[in-house]
């Protein structure tokens, strides 16, 4: 697969999977206002994803558009990071996942604006404003829950315990990305790690929480080795187009 196709799929699948997860909160959030907030963030991510997947389809040149890539690929062909497919759990676990992801995505999109690929640059330029808000939203909720009640604190710590091992994968580079970095198309995520660590530490300090200890990282999403959660998610997300391939609205 061409490196650009692979890279666009990774960026697109991150947003698609996380957006789908957030949409599941709609109607189940603690408050109506949170229903709307999470749905808005989810829709932002799905919007970004549709641009990345469109680019992937065009770069591939085999006639697959964003819808085909989203709804007619199987789990082994998905390229999202393992973090975004981790289950919603409770509200605290969802917030921790968003906290780790959005702070990373903000740093990434700020750099991707300078990509030599015009389409990637344009998508990032639009996305960065959305993602700044996502990070702000998640950072503030980390503080409210971490420095909140005994119960919310317990849950946010449990959420961190679950999600922390999936952070390293966000900063990993393989041969595909390496080639695109050299050409100025992809962002090298490794130099972003220090700033990400600093942001995470700052918010956790505000939340009176400790930065979790390093642990054995879980990875594999970028090469299609996913956890059991993604298959279940796709079953639901892809049900309608798979059952009724010619359905339109």
């Amino acid at each position, binding site marked *: 697969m061409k490196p650009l196709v692979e890279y666009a799929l990774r960026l697109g699948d991150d947003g698609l999977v996380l957006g789908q997860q957030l949409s599941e909160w709609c109607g189940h959030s603690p*408050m*109506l*206002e949170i229903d*709307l*907030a999470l749905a*808005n963030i989810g829709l932002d991510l799905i919007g970004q994803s549709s641009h990345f997947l469109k680019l992937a389809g065009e770069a591939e040149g085999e006639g697959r558009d964003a819808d085909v890539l989203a709804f007619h690929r199987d789990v082994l062909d998905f390229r999202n990071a393992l973090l975004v497919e981790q289950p919603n759990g409770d509200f605290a676990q969802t917030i921790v996942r968003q906290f780790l992801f959005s702070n990373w995505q903000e740093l990434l999109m700020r750099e991707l604006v300078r990509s030599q690929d015009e389409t990637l640059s344009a998508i990032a330029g639009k996305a960065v404003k959305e993602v700044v*808000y996502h990070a*702000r*939203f998640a950072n*503030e909720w980390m503080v*409210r829950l971490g420095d909140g009640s005994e119960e919310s604190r317990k849950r946010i710590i449990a959420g961190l315990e679950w999600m922390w091992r999936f952070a390293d994968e966000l900063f990993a580079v393989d041969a595909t990305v390496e080639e695109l970095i050299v050409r100025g198309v992809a962002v090298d995520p490794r130099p972003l790690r220090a700033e990400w660590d600093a942001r995470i530490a700052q918010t956790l300090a505000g939340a009176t929480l400790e930065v979790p200890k390093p642990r054995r990282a879980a990875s594999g999403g970028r090469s299609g080795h996913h956890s059991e959660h993604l298959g279940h998610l796709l079953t639901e997300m892809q049900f309608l187009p798979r059952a009724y391939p010619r359905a339109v609205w």
Partner: protein
Amino acid sequence: MNREWPLWEVFVRARNGLAHKHAGSVHAADARMAIEAARDTYTRRMEGVSLWVVPSASIVASDPGEADSLFEPAADKVYRHPTFYSIPENIKNI
């Protein structure tokens, strides 16, 4: 104990130069959360460029029981409307 978050009144400025207008209310635990909830609830279709949120408890309302004495006396004071001036043709926005 009341477990609901407090209510905040939301005011949206549609465009620069216009006044903030009351749009509705949101529940939020603190002021920043109220701004975010207001943003997500009332400006998601490009309704505004600026937001105010005010704790609903801070709003002082007139007493409906006093409506007669407060508002009815204005009913027959048509001279308070500046409708007796003739406005030149080329003056707009009045």
